[in-house]
């Protein structure tokens, strides 16, 4: 809930850590829309974000995650892709590295009518109206360093050496863009303004202090005066810069898996800055299964002894193709931690001994075998529905089929899941073949599958 996140921003201890899924283009995948659609079409974006809200039950949620919005307004060329946000392919301030960068006139600062900003504002207003009472909404802005690199291109790094004053002037311009964007987004109802600056991990602490400390301090102070909370997102190995980031006084920072979160939290606690993170995007969210996600989250939450100054979130913008069940698993672990801890206590993929698992000889069965893999149908609602569907079928077909439930809370069943390659719970298999994963079948569909299997067994 929104209030839980606000309590965390006020540095109060909470009963559980707030959960903020960074679902940018991934939101589109939930409704079958690609990245281009979800970053340009207000109806599709709104529909997708509402689905995130429904499925992942967030305490806070970003509205549009695209670091190229401001750059596009300022004349950068974009190259679009269907499974990730666009990238900048042309830099308007590019030129000779022997000439200093030119600071654009303030008259170029994007207005509410520039580029895709009207689209972003519309989605923000609609989300505010629909879920703003219960979910804290994040307005995301491209940070001054990354925006400057979008505008100037690769010369920015030699500029910092050769043309310190002109480069600082360009950063200051970008910071003014950030402040203006913050005005628009706060007016549209955003509760948290997040400044997302991935390239901060690419510069030294000394350069951060030289070029970025003053703009960021001013920016976070400006956001605070406007009465909303702020966040500072980085990605990559920003470990060395965590302390100087804290010194710019944001309400929170957000880091990815490259940073040791517990050690970083101690630094942040020193400055009373909330830290968010850092569920691994690829190895866990994208490529892991639901149990991996639940286990990771439970372990992360358990490693933080006092529920204070911490927000549970992915390391950065979630990959487009993150399986929906993985994110649902994260949400469940975040919200019903005790229950999920119990469910996954026996799950340790490296140590699972599958040698004792006997897989039936599916090809030689005399009658169909229905196997339902659940977390525990007594505890997990979706598992209960799946098991009910199977039980109804058992009543219909009686002795003509065999039915068994494997609850994941038992060690031997965990081993069976690993050996069978069960990726999601609940799943329903008929004669060793995966038929339904997470989606509960209709009675008619399941009965038809069983009739087909009976015929198959006769052959």
């Amino acid at each position: 809930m929104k209030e839980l996140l606000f309590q965390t921003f006020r540095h109060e201890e909470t009963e559980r850590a707030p959960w903020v899924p960074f679902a940018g283009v991934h939101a589109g995948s939930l409704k079958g829309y690609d990245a281009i659609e979800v970053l340009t079409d207000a109806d599709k974006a709104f529909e997708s974000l509402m689905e995130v809200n429904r499925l992942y039950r967030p305490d806070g949620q970003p509205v549009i995650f695209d670091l190229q919005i401001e750059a596009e307004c300022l004349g950068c060329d974009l190259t679009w892709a269907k499974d990730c946000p666009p990238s900048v392919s042309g830099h308007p301030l590019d030129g000779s590295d022997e000439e200093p960068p030119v600071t654009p006139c303030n008259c170029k600062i994007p207005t509410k009518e520039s580029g895709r900003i009207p689209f972003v504002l519309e989605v923000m207003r609609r989300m505010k109206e629909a879920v703003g009472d219960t979910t804290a909404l994040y307005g995301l802005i491209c940070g001054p360093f990354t925006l400057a690199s979008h505008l100037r291109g690769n010369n920015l790094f030699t500029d910092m050496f050769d043309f310190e004053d002109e480069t600082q002037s360009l950063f200051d311009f970008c910071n003014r863009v950030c402040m203006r964007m913050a005005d628009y987004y706060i007016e549209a109802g955003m509760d948290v303004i997040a400044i997302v600056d991935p390239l901060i991990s690419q510069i030294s602490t000394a350069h951060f202090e030289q070029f970025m400390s003053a703009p960021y301090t001013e920016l976070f102070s400006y956001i605070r005066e406007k009465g909303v909370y702020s966040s500072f997102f980085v990605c990559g190995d920003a470990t060395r810069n965590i302390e100087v980031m804290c010194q710019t006084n944001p309400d929170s920072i957000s880091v990815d898996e490259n940073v040791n979160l517990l050690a970083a939290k101690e630094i942040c606690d020193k400055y009373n800055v909330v830290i968010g993170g850092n569920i691994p995007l690829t190895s866990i969210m994208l490529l892991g299964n639901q149990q991996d996600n639940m286990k990771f989250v439970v372990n992360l939450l358990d490693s933080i002894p006092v529920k204070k100054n911490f927000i549970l979130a992915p390391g950065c913008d979630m990959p487009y193709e993150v399986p929906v069940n993985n994110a649902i698993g994260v949400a469940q672990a975040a919200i019903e931690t005790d229950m999920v801890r119990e469910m996954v206590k026996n799950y340790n993929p490296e140590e699972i001994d599958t040698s004792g698992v006997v897989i039936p000889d599916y090809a030689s069965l005399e009658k169909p075998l229905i196997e339902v893999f659940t977390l525990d149908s007594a505890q997990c609602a979706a598992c209960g529905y799946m098991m009910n569907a199977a039980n109804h079928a058992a009543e219909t077909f009686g002795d003509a089929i065999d039915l068994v439930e494997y609850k994941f809370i038992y060690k031997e069943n965990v081993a069976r899941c690993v050996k069978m390659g069960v990726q999601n719970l609940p799943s329903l298999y008929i004669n060793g073949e995966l038929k339904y994963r997470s989606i509960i079948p209709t009675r008619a569909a399941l009965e038809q599958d069983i009739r087909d299997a009976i015929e198959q067994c006769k052959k």
Partner: protein
Amino acid sequence: MPSNSAKNNPRTKLYLITGFLGAGKTTFIKQFLRLFPAQRVELIINEFGKEGVDGTLLRTYGAMMSEINGGSIFCACRLDQFEKVLSESAARYPDVIIVEASGLSDPTGVRRLFCQTDRFPHIDYQGAVCLMDAVRFPKLYKTARTCTKQLASSDIAVINRVDLATAEQLEETVSLLRGQRPDMRFLETTYGQIPDDFLAFFSQVQNTSEDTMPKTADLTLRRLTVSISPEMTPYELQKFIEMFAEETFRVKGLIQTTEGLMLADCVGNVVSVTPYNDAPASKEAVGCLTILSGAGMPVYSSVKKAAAWYPSAVLSVSYE
């Protein structure tokens, strides 16, 4: 379909090309391609807004090119996009894959990926070349941490555009390279030109990759010793070393951790912490990390800063 040669010996050699934006990677690749006549070559490019590799040249050498969507070129943690393209390439069983890393992103993750031999079992990782622009490198090295990471991830350096650099610029470039990677072989060139026997550089890299710590005295080397408490977890040890790894060229030690005896080993900036099952040579050998760095690297202050993140686990830092 794989070619006949691929069917008989389905192994693909992979070369990684790194270097900051504008260092001359594309020009280099054009030269590099010539070293693989009559072989099936695939090129994976991860950069936008630059001059592309000439299509005619690719056709001449029978090379195929794939591009990686760049929306997350900043993100070291989004290797999945790279892996996806690499898997598609590898599935065609070419003789050679050349990967051009994005000039702005940290190549450590890509380098680390090839240390996991089970991920792409039929790929033989040959090593990484780092392109350096002799004119711009001294400045970039001071402002872009990526340059340090690129050198740390590489095995061979090619200092490009030496004809355009002043004597001071070239000298400083070489001195920075020598400071960070005294172990690294390098050559100076113009227009990315390389000798015909350039591939031999890689076989030398492979032969030396298993070397132990250098024992000979070298006045340009700095050797630090860090004493570690058994209270440290393997994960903390890994993250501790990662904080300064890019400024070293070798880190090694047998460390007693909360999860038993571990061998910490780092060449360039690829850190590995793995269980050690043999008996240690002596008790004194356990609990100390030895860190080697070249002259001019701020490794002592970096290690001290990293130690501040783990105050109860890092007991002391000292020069030998």
